[in-house]
């Protein structure tokens, strides 16, 4: 008897009990479907988190000041953190460093006629756009000529514009007061690729060169460094922190957010979560398998006479075993395929809503199919063996 004939026979028998076959598959469908969904969502979430924390992977790391433990909760401990022009120049000249992205910030009021709005002011140069992409929704963005010439110009975020002006285009060309100094509004900016979790901050961007006019210092508060390449990140971060700690008179220490460690941490967390939820889904697959075994046992009992007849017509134990095994494997494999489509559909919907990448990988799909076939074999073996061992005379007499 050919294998193809066995498969056809199994399909015909499953088709003749369509409703039952469908219900039996349900356990496998849900099991495989949830495994695919969970793994895809886990991978998508990981990709999003990683890209957010690692700054899109442009080899940039952030330097921050860590006070000694006893001063950790003390806000003043951070006040003396400052990167001087000499510091920035020295860091810029390190061989592993591509560019320095430093900025100063403060919170203050911006005033237009009688209206005032609270906002964060950032003193930047053009390098800052490498940390985050910006677009101008009206007017233009700051450029290096504004910085080099110390122009008193500013761009506002949409939130600030909404508080001070009636419409976007009304803002451009107007004069606003910051700490009593007049600045010309040259544009309205928006941050691109805002992350899923970030909230919009009311902020102004103005040239670094105008910072001393407001606060009497050209020291910067925040420091990001872009290394030449991914391989240079470690070298650069060591060089930068060593330099800063040597210069420092503070009791704390300069440190670097290590993106590699963060990435590993994220992927560990998501992996563990995926494994836990995947394990629960795996249990539902197990329950589905037991359901298949159950139905196959019922089917063997129901078809005792058929088995007796087939044996009397010349079917060997092997033929009968194969027939029932193929039936259970076909059930679970079709169930697995439907589950994969369902899971991919759900994962796709979730990724569309959340704006995540859609990550259903071929290995996971193959694993899903393979595992459901495996479940079919394991849980089909007992019923199939029971059928194969039936005594033909007894079986033919079965009522």
């Amino acid at each position: 008897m050919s294998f193809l004939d066995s498969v056809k026979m199994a399909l015909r028998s499953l088709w003749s009990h369509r409703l039952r076959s469908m219900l039996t598959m349900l356990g496998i469908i849900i099991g495989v479907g949830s495994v695919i969904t969970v793994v895809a969502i886990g991978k998508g979430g990981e990709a999003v988190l990683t890209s957010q924390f690692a700054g899109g992977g442009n080899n940039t790391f952030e330097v921050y000041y860590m006070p000694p433990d006893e001063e950790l909760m003390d806000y003043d401990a951070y006040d003396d953190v400052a990167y001087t022009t000499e510091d920035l120049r020295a860091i810029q000249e390190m061989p592993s460093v591509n560019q320095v992205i430093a900025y100063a910030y403060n919170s203050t009021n911006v005033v237009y006629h009688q209206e005032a709005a609270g906002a964060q002011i950032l003193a930047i140069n053009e390098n800052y756009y490498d940390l985050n992409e910006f677009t101008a929704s009206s007017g233009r963005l700051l450029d290096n000529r504004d910085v080099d010439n110390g122009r008193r110009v500013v761009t506002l975020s949409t939130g600030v514009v909404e508080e001070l002006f009636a419409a976007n285009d009304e803002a451009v060309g107007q004069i606003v007061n910051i700490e009593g100094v007049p600045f010309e509004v040259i544009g309205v900016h928006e941050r691109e690729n805002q992350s899923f979790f970030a909230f919009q901050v009311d902020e102004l961007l103005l040239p670094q060169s105008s910072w001393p006019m407001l606060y009497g210092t050209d020291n910067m508060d925040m420091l990001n460094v872009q290394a030449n390449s991914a391989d240079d990140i470690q070298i650069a971060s060591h060089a930068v922190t060593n330099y800063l700690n040597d210069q420092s008179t503070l009791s704390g220490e300069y440190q670097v957010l290590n993106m590699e460690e963060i990435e590993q941490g994220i992927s560990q967390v998501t992996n563990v979560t995926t494994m836990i939820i995947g394990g629960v889904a795996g249990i539902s697959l197990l329950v589905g398998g037991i359901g298949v075994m159950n139905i196959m046992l019922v089917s063997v009992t129901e078809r005792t006479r058929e088995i007796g007849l087939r044996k009397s017509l010349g079917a060997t134990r092997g033929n009968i075993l194969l027939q029932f095994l193929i039936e259970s494997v076909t059930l679970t494999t079709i169930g697995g395929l439907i589950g994969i489509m369902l899971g991919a559909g759900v994962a796709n919907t979730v990724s569309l809503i959340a704006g995540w990448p859609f990550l259903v990988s071929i290995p996971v799909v193959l694993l899903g199919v393979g595992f459901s076939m495996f479940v079919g074999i394991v849980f089909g073996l007992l019923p199939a063996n029971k059928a194969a061992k039936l005594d033909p005379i007894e079986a033919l007499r079965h009522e």
Partner: protein
Amino acid sequence: MIHLKNLDKQYKNGDQTLRVLNDIHLKIEENEFVAIMGPSGSGKSTLMNMIGCLDQPTSGEYLLHGTDVASQPEKELAKVRNAQIGFVFQQFHLLPKLSAMMNVELPLIYGGVKKKERRERARLALEKVGLEDRVNHLPNQLSGGQKQRVAIARALINEPSLILADEPTGALDSKSGTQIMELFTQLHHEGATLIMVTHEQEVADYAKRIVTVRDGEIIKDRGHEYVVPR
């Protein structure tokens, strides 16, 4: 063709041993039409199963075409059943979800015959039993007599050397029963070897030879010169 020698069959039921067949000697030649008769519990069904290679004797020999099939492993017995023996049952035992054609071709599937040839031979077999216009009918669309004729077509399809019928008319009305017996008679005239278990004298009379079994022993063998040696 069939030669049973000193055939014993015992069943163990707890401490008791039940002797169902007791020292059976039987020879059946090619193209014989034999009826096996006996009251229920006489062992005639067990004898039938033994001849059909569905059961194996506790001791003794069963020579089919000169080879001892009693000692063969299960797989070989399945092959013998497939190639040499065609079964006809009282309850027809057709698979309800398969058409007449598909029911008839089942033995050929286990015999490893290709689909095209299977179809061709199944059609011929159904023609032979007069059901050429019922090829694609399901069993529940057929009358009892037609079902039994499908079963006979299935028994014939592998051109077996022996047809075994177990109460073939037991579930039929007398008219259909007569038609089935006429079909058997025709097959006998065409050269088939037939063994039939029945407890109806009227049906047994179609056979040329009647073997009577009681309490596991052959007590009468009418119509045959072969005398049971004791």
